[in-house]
């Protein structure tokens, strides 16, 4: 059972306000080790610097979008096994299917509550303690 207090999560979003909100939501769940990245390239840098337990990435970002990041993560030797949750803003089934095919472990639709996020995380890595 993964311990929520030791979970290392990376939030990727180009909007600072959204990153901070996601951080607050994660903190509500009990996550203490939170990294942030404002774009895909920085996310890759962060992911190659330390072991992560989860990446929560927005889809809609300039330059490298969430799918691009997902593909890059899955092709990265150090980060390829890190669970990946894609955040989408729209009810876009096509996108979610694409994400699933590219190796996303789950998705969550913005805006989300702490309960929903926790549920999604637990679906991916198991019940949190």
């Amino acid at each position, binding site marked *: 059972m993964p311990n929520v207090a030791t979970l290392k999560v990376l939030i990727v979003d180009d909007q600072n306000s*959204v990153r*901070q909100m996601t951080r607050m939501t994660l903190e509500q769940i009990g996550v203490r080790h939170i990294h942030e990245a404002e774009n895909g390239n*920085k996310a890759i840098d962060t992911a190659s610097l330390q072991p992560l337990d989860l990446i929560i990435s927005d889809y809609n970002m300039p330059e490298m979008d969430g799918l691009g990041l997902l593909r890059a993560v899955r092709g990265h*030797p150090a980060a390829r096994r890190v669970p990946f949750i894609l955040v989408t803003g729209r*009810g876009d089934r096509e996108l979610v299917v694409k994400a699933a095919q590219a190796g*996303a472990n789950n998705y969550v639709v913005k805006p989300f509550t702490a309960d929903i996020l926790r549920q999604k995380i637990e679906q991916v890595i198991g019940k949190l303690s």
Partner: protein
Amino acid sequence: MSSLDQLKQTFFEECSEALLQIESGLADIREGGGSDDTINAVFRSVHSVKGGAGIFGFEDLVRFAHVFETVLDAMRSGKMSASQDSVDLLLTANDVLTDLIAMSQTGDAIPADYGSECRAAMEHLLGQDGAAENDGDEPAPADFEGLDFVPVRVDDVDAAPEGGGARSYRIVFRPGPELLKKANEPLFVLRELRALGKLVLVAEADNLPPLSDIEPDRPYIGWTGTLTTAADRAQIEDVFKFVADDCELEIVEEEAEQVPALPVEQDLAPPAEQTESATEPTPLPAATAPSITPPEPAAAQQPAANAEPATAARPAPTKAVATTMRVEVDKIDRVVNLVGELVIAQAMLGQVVFTLPEDVSGRLTQVIEEVSHHTRELKDSVMSMRAQPIGAVFQRMPRLVRELAAKTGKKVRLELHGETTEVDRSIIERLGDPLTHIIRNSIDHGIETPETRAAAGKNEEGTVRLSAEHRGGRIVVEVVDDGGGIDPERVLKKARDRGLVGPDAVLSEDEINNLIFAPGFSTAETVSDISGRGVGMDVVRRNIQDVGGRINVRSERGRGMTLQLALPLTLAVMDGMVIKVREQTYVVPMSAIVECLRPGEADIHNLMGARGMLQLRGTLVPVVHLCDLLGVGADAASTEERIVIIADAGDGSSFGIIVDELLGHQQVVVKSMEESYGAVPGVGGATILGNGRVALILDVEKLSDLAVNQASPLAASRITSTEPATTE
């Protein structure tokens, strides 16, 4: 402010950036210049607004942004064409969005049907093009049926360090005698080490002395063992960061016991097009995963080729640091104020040192010079923090021009130059309205109708050129149009009708042109709803003067006119020349000074009053006697001792100011006097000098005007009163 409020604030800041992006993107598209990237960027911006609004609970904003975004989505996927009409509708939508954001920010109640017209029009557009997919109504389903998301098993996560990229290190850790005394605790170190991976340790108790000999603050136990971890060497060393100097430490990487579960070769395999389960991701081609570096020589001895991320990732930490951060303007302003105080304090210090005997002051002076060098750099850095590209103001203009052109039935093209020129924030904030007004005037009064232009042999499409550049310590913003220019006869007639000019006064063309800045002047035959009711140009001039700028007009009949704004780089601190006239001390802004010289008596030809002419390298330069001009006493000093400051009069010409003494060059903090005393012609503000006294900062350009005006009877009467003193 609660943290949530702060986040909302951040969100609204992001919104204003997004709005600018939407606006300029749509403008590009409308001009036919937008690429796929442009529409994508616009879409992303609207989408970001919507996403944030959803998170912060601004439902009205979400609803509107959703329709907006759906139209954009249809457009970018090619389901809908980007016709001029539809882009115009989107521009309107951007206005509504701007309003909704503003209302959300202020917390004003949003009228229920606000923007519904625009929204309905967009929905109509979607319906008619058959592009509507989601019947407009969010929110998206939280779960899609039938999607096979295979959650990663928890074992996989836990096992990850052991599988992909796990390495074994042999660790020897023997605390030295000083370790405990320095308040370090070996157990904490071990606990941290264990957090990195699987740790097996054996304690070495060989050195443990008999109980009677034990010193309590001396560690006797050491540990050896193996750490299996995905962490790299640097991370392990990091654990020992505080104790490394006080212990015996060995970290030796051992050959991995097993071949990594996912060899690198497999990663480099060409991408397979198949749909795999989520846990077995599709590998990327090597080109898109640049961090897969060719194995280094060391890897030959170590089968775990990807056990070298430490080398591969080493340069990364610098990249991971955020390159920008948001700071409240208030905080920067506080620093600016402090720098101002520092400048004053430093001037005082200089003054004190100056009074000391030379043997004491020599070294001190050196130090103070160094301090002043740093202060200047500090000032420049802080000012650059406040600086913003002027593009923020320029960006509003294309829209304005389009609207005005449509309203007046004229064809106008707007050219922008120098958008990246950086200007102090406080000036940017106050530049928007004057510029808007000037451009309105240009289009309303300057640019002719296409018919008139064609008849005059001009291109039917008029051009308005808006540019900004740094020039001689100032920012020069120009609005140039190729319209009809100023009609001097009409302007003069109007001015006479309004009693601004006497019926018999003879004015030069330049003077006539400048009448447009006279209060209450309006040349429009009928008051239009565009340029307003003649509150125009005089207000514009006052606005520009309020920020320490000046405005000039040049006009060529039938060819167009140019309005030039010269703005100071900053308002708070500036370089000044401290001068003395009689017993008074003044400061002349360095940016206005061209040169200082001590002319021979024969070179100065006195005219009436405070004016004169100076023979300077073959040309005649008008000069003013500052003492006469300011009425601080007669000019008693002999001509040889007087100093002439050649200053830039603002319109490209120069003129001289005769002063008694130059006291020195220093940075001064500009304190506004207008709030307390109103605008005083010739005085731009005040400052505190090193000796703690207040000195007035002269407004050089106005001084030149003042000198000219003294030729008028009113000013001449004042000069007559000082004349007896002059003849002494």
